[in-house]
């Protein structure tokens, strides 16, 4: 019941109604290849300021590749990615550095620096980009650790934390600079349901408190339905649909329903084609 109340409170308008809002991220006709294999095929997607967009899809759907493009870690074959009004593949490296200070990222494995304590990890962006004295940085790091429920873990090494704690610490580091856009890669994957739900609640609280745009890549349906304002469903490098939770749930598209209901696609297999696939390189 709490979840329903929360969704009503934070409900975002559907795609059409949202079109008048400022775009935090604008992806246009994005095509990318790994070698000769096409991974993303003409992706176009707008993410508006202040919304939580969940990018969802099965394994190999291209969602992690799309995230890497949004972060500017990969260069596309064609198409553009505009973040906060700037084309991230065409701006100068120094401008990209500056732009990246306005984003926070929590990677799937946390990616905390193992040589640093949790507190040092969280202070790192402040140390590098903000001209603050040591005590101020320490207080800010402690505040973020309080928010994620890790108040007493400042001096511990990442290797001493559990999976859920690492994800929360990574989230604290991602938001320490109060970014305009927060990216989370599989924030609740591999966590037990209680911890996963706590991480989801945390993301919702952070968005509500700061108004930041949040982009989440996940294949966890429950988590996606709980926190998304809109969901983008990817399959085989294409967008199947972008819409609110209700729109995605009620989609008549068979591939979306397969994904939601965890059904595999069963295509009829031609016996001759099957035999050729198995033996083509042996004969």
């Amino acid at each position, binding site marked *: 019941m709490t979840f329903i109340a929360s969704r009503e409170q934070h409900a975002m308008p559907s795609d059409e109604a949202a079109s008048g809002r400022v775009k935090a991220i604008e992806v246009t006709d994005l095509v990318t290849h790994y070698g000769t294999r096409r991974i993303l095929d003409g992706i176009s997607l707008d993410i508006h300021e202040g919304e939580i967009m969940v990018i969802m899809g099965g394994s190999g759907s291209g969602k992690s590749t799309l995230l890497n493009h949004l972060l500017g870690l990969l260069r596309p074959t064609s198409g553009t990615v505009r973040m906060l009004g700037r084309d991230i593949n065409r701006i100068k490296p120094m401008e990209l550095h*500056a*732009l990246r200070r306005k984003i926070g990222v929590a990677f799937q494995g946390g990616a905390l620096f193992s040589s640093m304590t949790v507190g040092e990890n969280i202070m790192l962006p402040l140390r*590098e980009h903000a001209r603050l004295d040591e005590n101020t940085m320490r207080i800010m790091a402690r505040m973020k650790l309080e928010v994620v429920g890790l108040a007493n873990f400042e001096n511990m090494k990442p290797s001493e934390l559990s999976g859920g704690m690492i994800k929360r610490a990574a989230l604290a580091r991602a938001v320490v600079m109060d970014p305009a856009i927060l990216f989370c890669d599989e924030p609740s994957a591999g966590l037990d349901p209680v911890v996963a739900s706590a991480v989801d609640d945390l993301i919702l609280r952070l968005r509500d408190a700061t108004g930041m745009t949040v982009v989440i890549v996940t294949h966890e349906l429950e988590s996606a339905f709980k926190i998304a304002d809109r969901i983008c469903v990817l399959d085989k490098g294409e967008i199947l649909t972008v819409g609110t939770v209700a729109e995605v749930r009620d989609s008549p598209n068979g591939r979306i329903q397969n994904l939601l209901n965890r059904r595999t696609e069963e295509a009829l297999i031609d016996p001759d084609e099957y035999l050729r696939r198995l033996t083509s390189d042996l004969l």
Partner: protein
Amino acid sequence: MGLALLAERVGRTTLNGVAEIGYAASLFGESLYWLVMGWRRHQPVRADAVIAQMMDVGIHAIPIVAVMAGTIGIMLAIQGIYTLRTFGAETRVVAGVALSVTREFAPLITGILVAGRSGSALAARLGSMRINQELDVLKVMGISPVRFLVVPVLIAGVVMMPALTFLADLTALGMAGVYVGFDLGMSFHAYVDQTINILRVSDILHGLVKSGIFAVLITLIGVANGSSVEGGAEGVGRATTRAVVQAISAIIVVDMIFVFAMTRQ
């Protein structure tokens, strides 16, 4: 068919080699950029990171460098006396040891030891960081991985390698002096006097400059291998091995080129 495959493999390997050299060169250029421009962009290279690397590359390597250099010094003295005895010129061993240690053996043995210790550690560290997405995190935080990770190691190497080489000079010459005294009955004082008379400052600088170049090679090769790791823990192991083999090979080849360029007038 076999020939075509061989040609393709050779071509591919050559291209990869050229690409790796190009990548290392761009790393060096970017390192120099951050070293000079970091202050202006309010992203300076952190002194504490440089000091930590100096401890790791330099201070912690002192025992092994001293032991190995001392051993090399004694070995050179033994071989020198054995060879020169044929001509009845055993006392000339002092000149042979002094010049070969300062110009060749001290920088070479220090380079090989640092490549084995720090080059491999650097490749393994960066490889693990790449696998754990720590390098990606730095990039998306707007922190240049080159400034944050590479430049401190480069500075530490360029400062500490010549210092270690100088230590190796002293240790090797000292231990050689002890052996010469034992074998030929020459007093240590007389040995030191002879050594000082023979050596010119340029001989010592020759070794120190070379060791600075070796430091750059070890760092760039370690970084290039570590930051291109693919394939999990196995990939890290492969990159570490490659980094050590490539660094030692590069040290020996560059040493030969340097000696050729500097000794042929």
